[in-house]
């Protein structure tokens, strides 16, 4: 579904991504793992169009989407949930969700809103509340729900577990799994490697801008080398 082919990306003169190639198959959940500064967020920004790669190309459903703007990519079906959630703090929960459907012109938006409120009952409760008054976990749910409102084929999630309590993190991963089961392909960036790999089909490990390992999620989980280097603890 998504094919990233040898992309190089820079911030000014500093090269952040070095020849990154990865592939996401339709219907799967793929995780990109890595420490701070490995280039995970940059990879997401490049795929979503917020950053233009100097070299390489990105193919989505067989079509070259490398140079497209973010709004054009949303129309093609790639939606990003940015790092740190970035909900619109001054708008209500309902308005945030409506903004997710910004580019849509069909008349099923209300149905989708209802569906979101069914999946996230807490958002229904807080419908009229300003986004900024929600707790971290609720904001993350809102950010995910907002992205789904654009009816994406591919959902990009940038560190959805960041700064959340362990119980809430478990909730978020459960939701990701559910979203995937309804037919949305998910590309996930995480530091929370063990949890992320548990819900994923495939994983890539990123280190200082390069992919240093990749494999099926359960393989990565059981690879002692990977476990030690990236999951912080020797596997038992």
């Amino acid at each position, binding site marked *: 579904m998504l094919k990233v082919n040898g992309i190089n990306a820079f911030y000014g003169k500093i090269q952040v991504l070095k020849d990154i190639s990865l592939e996401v198959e339709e219907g799967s959940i793929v995780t990109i793992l890595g420490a701070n500064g490995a280039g995970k967020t940059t990879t997401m920004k490049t795929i*979503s169009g*917020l950053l233009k790669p100097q070299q390489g190309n990105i193919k989505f459903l067989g079509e070259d989407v490398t140079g497209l*703007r*973010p*709004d054009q*990519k*949303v*129309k093609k079906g790639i*939606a*990003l*949930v*940015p790092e740190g959630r*970035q*909900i*619109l*703090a*001054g*708008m209500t929960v309902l*308005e945030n969700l*409506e*903004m*997710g459907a*910004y*580019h849509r012109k069909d008349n099923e938006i209300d149905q989708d809103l209802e569906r979101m409120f069914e999946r996230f009952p807490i958002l229904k409760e807080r419908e009229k509340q300003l986004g900024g008054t929600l707790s971290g976990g609720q904001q993350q749910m809102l950010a995910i729900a*907002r*992205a789904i409102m*654009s009816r994406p084929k591919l959902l990009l999630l940038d560190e959805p577990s960041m700064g959340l309590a362990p119980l809430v993190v478990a909730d978020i991963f459960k939701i990701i799994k559910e979203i995937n089961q309804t037919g949305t392909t998910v590309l996930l960036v995480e530091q929370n490697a063990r949890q992320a790999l548990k819900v994923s089909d495939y994983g890539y490990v990123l280190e200082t801008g390069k992919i240093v390992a990749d494999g099926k999620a359960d393989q990565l989980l059981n690879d002692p080398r990977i476990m030690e280097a990236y999951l912080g603890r020797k596997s038992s």
Partner: protein
Amino acid sequence: MLAELFNPYYLQIGCFILINIILALSVYVPLSTGQLSLASAGFMGLGAYTSALLTIHFDLPILVGIIAGTLIAGLIGILIGLPTLRLQGVYLAIVTLGFGEVIRVVFINWESLTNGSVGISGIPHIGREILKTLKGFGFNPQSMGLQNNQFIFLSIFVLLLIIAIFLVWFFRRQHYSRVGRAYAAIKLDEKAAESMGINITYYKVLAFTQGALLAGFAGSIYAHVLAYISPADFSYHRAVDILVFTVFGGSEVIWGPVFGAIFLTFLPEVLRFISEYRYMIYGLMIIILMAVRPQGLIDVNIINWIKSKKRSKRGVTHGSGSEKSM
């Protein structure tokens, strides 16, 4: 009796209030995407000079001059808006302020065209043109009990009032439209708006250009109401005045700049009896307001409060009904 009510002095203040409302909107609209622009005085000058020169030298009707002045300001607005997109907050403010000064200095130095710092006089007057046209149809203001002078200012006032009401209506509607939602999202969080599929380049340039069009329009009108313009009319002081209307009134809702323009245009006139102290009071009020209410006098909460007051006045049954539905 009617004659006393339509004192040309009052009517002229009324005209300035309406022009200032349009100018305040020219800051409010870009600011609703988070762009703090101080270019309004410059765009106003462009509109004023374009329209004045066209009507004087080419004998074009005032309407054509005003349309041309507005469009020139809008065009330059696009040209300035595109490269300054990357600038935010105070940096954009400085660049746009610089732009305004460049425009002013061009007006001063391009003497063959603009008459330099002396300014341009003898600009066709809207009110007089209206009177002339109506007299051509056999109309005489005396039949309404008005003198020519009164009728001239009354006609401008009514015309501007209709235009100002239309503009406020238009931008209020826009605020609740797709465009307005995009503006609000960009103001709250540009990156989030972008990742949501909003073309931020398009909407930011659109907002900036709308501001330029408004200022250019207000400037063209200004030229044909005063019949005299000079570069000093479009200086840094004007830019700050316009900004203060919006900041003082509040930039969250459209009623803020409208109120700010009305109040701050009135105030120096009302305080005329204490002559030299009035600008001290003016300044003091701004300082106090900014310390107490940095969001401006009129904000969303006040509007909601007024709305709820209106609702409860309309009848208890209606109020309790809406409470149930909550």
